[in-house]
């Protein structure tokens, strides 16, 4: 009798599919609006984020960086009226960034507030990147660069893909006071070391003390130290502050190539903070079925224990692109696998990519995606919303190239903000309305009768 798998059922007002930045942001916005929310879906690409929250760093096809993203948005609005960033009010965009970053801040990853101009941030190749919000652990880097302060970039024996000499070789011309040093990480054997492992070890006060001593040893006259992003996974702000206290130096992180820490940080923070706020979270499982009927939507998925069914009155689709599985590139077409939504796309496979990989104009494939109306509802083949209950957020939406325009977080946050707003209007407007208090439907294992 036990072996017949009965799905575990959950009922909620809003189901968010996809736990990338868009799905996470949508869940944050929803719980802040007291909407009972369930979040399911694979984390996909979020593990690869840098920690920087970009709004608009480049305009497609133009090689120069965007220093004033707000002005850039005006330009987008005129030149690319269908661009998702051109479809949101600036005030909403700012509000969305503030709301999302303050949620992260309360979980131990403080961010700089969205400013009037982009921040010129550092990369592990010693190149520069325009971004809107940087985490507190990385903020001293852009500051030190702007001031051209004497600074030592420190890397670690056994850490592949991050070379302080590389940073200095490429940035030193513009930053004369920059120097490179290499040290061994406390208590790590000869051989490969991973940023995640170092970050976890730095959550132990004793490790911080030993690292602080080593850093003081190589700082020389510099008062600023740059490190790969290893300052803790959980509550990195605390690790960062403690290391600055111990060394008496200003310290900042530079993002690293995968497998890197900032994505793991974000994921673990949200996976813990959202359930605390009442979100039903089914982590790391792909939703395999989604259907709508008169009363609501049904999501099917399974975890290691067995099948799960979620009933919701509204759904936000935030399943991402190819990496996260929100879109699939078949040899003959690009498809949306969950509902087979129509995907706006280039005429044929030959047109997906340009000849040159690093062509500054970007590749047409990346502008493919689903169409949404002004209420963030995906459109069906007849050009009408395919369900009044379905909303979309994130980079699955067409007419943008988040990579080349350096606008991944911006699009995720903006579209999530809009989609939650629209879902809320729907939920409050539709029969029954929103429950006065969210029904907290945390999953509890109830031993059976």
């Amino acid at each position, binding site marked *: 009798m036990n072996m017949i798998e009965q799905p575990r059922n959950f009922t909620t007002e809003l189901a968010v599919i996809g736990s990338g930045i868009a799905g996470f942001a949508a869940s944050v916005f929803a719980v802040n609006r007291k909407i009972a929310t369930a979040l399911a879906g694979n984390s996909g*690409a979020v593990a*690869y984020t*840098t920690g920087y929250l*970009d709004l608009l760093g*480049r305009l497609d096809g133009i*090689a*120069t*960086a965007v220093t004033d993203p707000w002005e850039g948005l005006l330009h987008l609005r005129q030149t690319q009226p269908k661009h998702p960033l051109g479809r949101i009010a600036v005030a909403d965009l700012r509000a969305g960034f503030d709301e999302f970053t303050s949620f992260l801040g309360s979980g131990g990853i403080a961010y700089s507030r969205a400013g009037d101009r982009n921040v010129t941030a550092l*990369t*592990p*190749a*010693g*190149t*520069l*990147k325009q971004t809107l919000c940087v985490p507190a652990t990385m903020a001293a880097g852009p500051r030190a660069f702007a001031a051209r302060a004497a600074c030592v970039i420190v890397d670690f024996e*056994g850490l*592949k*893909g*991050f*070379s302080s*000499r*590389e940073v200095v*070789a*490429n940035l030193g011309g513009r930053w004369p006071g920059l120097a490179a040093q*290499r040290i061994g990480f406390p208590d790590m*054997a*000869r*051989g*490969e070391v991973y940023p995640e492992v170092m970050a976890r070890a730095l959550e132990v006060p004793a490790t911080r003390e030993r690292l602080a001593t080593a850093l003081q040893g190589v700082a020389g006259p510099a008062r600023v130290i740059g490190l790969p992003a290893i300052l803790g996974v959980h509550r990195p702000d605390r690790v960062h502050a403690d290391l600055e206290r111990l060394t008496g130096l200003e310290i900042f992180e530079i*993002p690293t*190539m*995968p497998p890197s820490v900032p994505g793991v940080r974000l994921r673990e923070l949200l996976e813990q903070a959202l359930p605390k706020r009442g979100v039903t979270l089914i982590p790391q499982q792909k939703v395999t079925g989604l259907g709508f009927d008169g009363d609501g939507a049904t999501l099917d998925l399974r975890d290691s224990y067995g099948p799960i069914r979620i009933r919701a009155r509204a759904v936000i689709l935030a399943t991402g*692109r*190819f*990496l996260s*599985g929100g879109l*699939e*590139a*078949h*040899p003959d077409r690009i498809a949306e696998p969950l509902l087979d939504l129509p995907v706006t796309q280039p005429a*044929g*496979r*030959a047109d*997906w*990519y340009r*000849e*040159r*990989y*690093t*062509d*500054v104009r*970007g*590749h047409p*494939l*990346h502008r493919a995606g689903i169409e949404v109306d002004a209420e963030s509802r995906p459109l069906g083949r007849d050009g009408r919303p395919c369900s009044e209950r379905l909303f979309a957020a994130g980079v699955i939406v067409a007419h943008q190239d*988040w*990579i*080349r325009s*350096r606008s*991944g977080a911006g699009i995720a946050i903006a579209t999530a903000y809009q989609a939650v707003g629209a879902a809320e209007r729907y939920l409050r407007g539709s029969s029954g309305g929103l429950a006065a208090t969210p029904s907290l439907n945390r999953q509890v294992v109830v031993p059976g009768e």
Partner: protein
Amino acid sequence: MSTISPEQPAPAAATTLETEVLIIGGGVTGTGIMRDLALRGIHSILIDKIDLCAGASGGNHGLLHSGARYVSTDLEAAIECRQENELLKRLAPHCIEATGGLFVAVEGDDPAFADEFPELCRRAGIRCDELTVAEARKLEPHLSDRLVRACRVPDATVDPFHLALANVDHARLTNGSLYRSHTELLRFEIVDGEIRSAVCRDHRTLAPLTIRARQVVNAGGAWAMNIARLAGCADVDLLYAKGTLLVNHDRMTRHVVNRLRPPGDGDILVPGGTVSILGTTSTRIQDLDHVAPTVDEIDRNIREGAAMIPALAGARYTRAFSRVRPLLQGTGNASDRAASRGFALLDHRSQGLANFCTITGGKLTTFRLMAEKAADLVAGRLGNRQAGTTATVPLPGDDAGRWTEPGAAPKHWYKLNDPGDMILCECEMVPQSAIDEIVATPPGAEREVMSIEAISLRSRVGKGPCQGSFCGIRVASYLYDSGYYRDAAGLVHMRDFFDERFKGQRPVIWGRQAAQMELAEALHCGLLGLDALDAD
């Protein structure tokens, strides 16, 4: 290795080099001639506009034909293949894997062809064992359940890069013959019916270089007609057949699998180390320099290949490439596939030149024979009476190509078990020590500046499913670390490496490869800004 750096002075401007024989074209034939001559005591310089095996030599299946493929179209070529196949297996076993080959027919294929096939093989002296369908599917479980006929022949696989590197290395060690990559021929200086020198330049730095030689060999493959015209010769008449092939990142079969029918699209699948290569299509083209796989060619290969091996329909392909095969004009009959696979050696006497020859046509399997014929002519003209010995002298192994062999680097690394020797290319498991060695003494390019691309050519770096998107970054930062890169050159090399790898990926980016590429681009452009290197 910290003393080596890409900024070390290149050979001074306006250099002149002297040699007995200048060989143009670093394919297997050119490198074979270089070695053959060296064994006769003749010094040569080999140049290539790009690098070793950049043309058809590097752009084929890597199939060492038993000859069976040609028994129905060209008996002579089939016999040549059979002889060279047996010889190379003996003399260059480290470049060859004796996989054996299957010829299989599926429902709908012409039974008459299959009926005739074993007898045709016997006529060419090629061993051909007929197998039952059950036996064949036991040997190769991926074969279609619509299989109707199967034969086994002594096909094998060969690594052309390894062959070329070993040839160059042997020639260098034998008499100091020299190979120069990225050396583009601009024109010849011809005086009194003799080429006196070749005026070249470095393809990248544009630094000029003059090479004076007593004899000049044109081993330019598909470019042989163009090179001959630079020497004023109009007697090289080639047809260009474009072939498109796909690389599947999984080794799906143990044997080479051929379709038992007249040669056609997508009818050969060759296991090469850890991957499989599927091909090929054949299209007549005019323009040599803009050759890229088309969607249609790729889809045709997969469709046809899947008839033999259904799993090919849903397989993950990492690359596709097109290369031009030179076909000799003159047989005049029907299709390009039936055109002669034989080769031609032209002495250009009729064109009024006494020290120039062209060797072209042919195929990978017969490269040694072609090289021998060309070397016979050149040696004779130089008055060297020594006979060629490449049919008896084994090709020395193994250092030159040790990093190009799939699966060799990780085996070596695993055995050493040194945690300090970290893996830089995780897909193909190439460790730091391999990079050190290649940079310090680059096989086939002693004086060359090593870029990430050049390291990739001499190793398995970037050949796995991520196609270099992660290891390009790790190799660059390792080379910065070790002091090899000291300025933006490393970034430019990284970008160029990714651009170059992309050319091969571009036509097959769908399914999982689309996910991989999205991650790569987010990293390369979104984070590192390699799409804006020139702007910032």
